[in-house]
């Protein structure tokens, strides 16, 4: 008797729409969440691009020192409705030397391997003395200061779906709810072009001027 009733129910069209809606509703909800989350994540990543540029540029103009903090970046880039709940983190710096800088370091490393640390130091000291103190300020330091300062910022943003669903959008080695840009912005060391040392004679002249006016 009960079995017959059940079969009739299944054959009947009554309630089918309710059942089908219930079945497809999760898909619609997931799509709805994605429609909100994905553009928001993309927007966050675009703003992170701007924040990264700012970080690297400030560092480039201040010999690698970042003169602003995360609160400033947060206020500048995420102080609106779309940035609500976003928490940004500045990743550890990964500065790079230019190819000339690396070449010089490679030569110095090779010399250290070949002659030993002590002898290389003695050699550099002697050449610096013979050159009147011009080797360091006018050659070694010029290339050593040609550095590209990095800026990399990530954001922790709440999402409607579990954040792990968007892992494809997150950068490498980040926790699931953090979003990165996947690259670091590099800016050249702008103030380094003004850097100068002085030869021994120049230092001596400076000292005489200071003492005797």
């Amino acid at each position: 008797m009960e079995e017959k009733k059940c079969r009739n129910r299944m054959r009947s069209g009554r309630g089918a729409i309710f059942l089908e809606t219930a079945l497809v509703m999760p898909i619609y909800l997931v799509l709805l969440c994605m429609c909100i989350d994905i553009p928001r994540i993309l927007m966050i990543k675009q703003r992170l691009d701007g924040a990264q540029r700012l970080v690297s540029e400030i560092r480039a103009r201040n010999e690698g020192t970042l003169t602003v903090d995360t609160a400033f970046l947060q206020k500048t880039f995420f102080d609106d409705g779309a940035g609500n709940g976003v928490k940004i983190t500045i990743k550890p710096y990964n500065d790079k030397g230019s190819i000339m800088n690396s070449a010089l370091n490679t030569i110095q490393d090779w010399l250290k391997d070949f002659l030993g640390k002590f002898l290389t130091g003695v050699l550099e000291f002697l050449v610096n003395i013979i050159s009147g103190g011009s080797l360091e300020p006018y050659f070694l330091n010029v290339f050593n200061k040609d550095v590209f300062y990095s800026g990399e910022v990530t954001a922790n943003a709440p999402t409607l779906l579990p954040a792990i669903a968007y892992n494809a959008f997150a950068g490498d080695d980040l926790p699931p709810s953090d979003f990165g840009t996947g690259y670091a912005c590099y800016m050249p060391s702008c103030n380094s072009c003004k850097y100068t040392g002085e030869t021994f004679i120049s230092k001596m002249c400076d000292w005489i001027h200071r003492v005797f006016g």
Partner: protein
Amino acid sequence: MMRALGKTCLKRISSDRGVAFYYTAFITFFILSILTVIFDVSAVSRKKIQAQNAADAAALEMAVWQCRGMNIVQNINSEIYQTDTVICVIYGIAGGMTIIAKGLEASVFLAPIGVIVEQAAAALARVGYLVHNLVVDVFLKNLRLVYVNGTMVMGYIAANNVASANGADQIIPPIPSPGGGGGGDIFSKILEFIVNAINKLTSGFVAIGIPTSTDVILKIPVEEGDAKSMPINIKDPEGAGGIAYRVLITTLLLNASLADISTKLVYVDKPYRSKEGVEMKMPPMIWGVWKKNDVSYISKYFLGGDDSSYMNPPVLAYAVGQAQGGNVTMTSAYDHEFRPTHYGVGADAFLISVDNLRFKEDMEKGGIKIHFNIREYFDKFLLH
């Protein structure tokens, strides 16, 4: 059997049951397509931001190198001047000692002391001469030459370097290696070596820099010998300082022990100088980079239709950098802390707007006039 199947199919189609699944499939596909387009458009605009960062960094790095070159040349000039001034003081002391020695030598009893003093004066002058030779002639002048002629090359390399660090794509793609390493004949080995060498040389070539003036293509525009240079009075050799210097050297030449180097004791340096008295503006350089772009087929359809020429348009970006400032006669207490004020105000690197560029659009040679509409090219290729 076939009739029963047809009947079932007809019944399914005419029935409303399961229609929600068809709608859902269609709507899901539509929404995912829209999301794909949004994702691709965002990716393209982010690539544009990254390419812009790369172009800006390249332009800035080149300007930094130009500033560095100019500032160092200026500093080295100053160092040479300071060193030679100190050496002139040494020569002065030696000259004074020589005059005293000559006086002593005139007397019968003190003549031996006079000879010793004269030799001591000669030794002192030789030390000064040696310091000048080593520090000024061997190191400082050659270093200055390196920066005058090498700055642009180093700037090109470093600008490409920083553009590459910012993710700019290669302009010259690597040539596929011919392979066959190991068991190949000598010809294929040489070919492989050449191909690998070319790939290595061009692998970092990611940014193109175009100077807006021919002055800065090979060397920084600091001119040699635009100030007659002498120690003591570098700007005015005919003035009181210059005359004093000559008198000094003349007294020193009385010393017989210095006869072998007498002609070398007078030095007139021809310095390379950035312009004095006027704020210097280097000709700006335009830097261009590109990034590969790959959007999905759906986006290609929405964004570019089915026209194959719209497939994967590359993302281009350009930036203009310029070295500004640099004044050897002006000092400022507000200049960089690394920079002693007596070196003058150093040049600074800036990114400038393309509107600040002044192009030479007409060129005339041998009665033939050529018109370049550079702005039009800018609008066509770079501002898209």
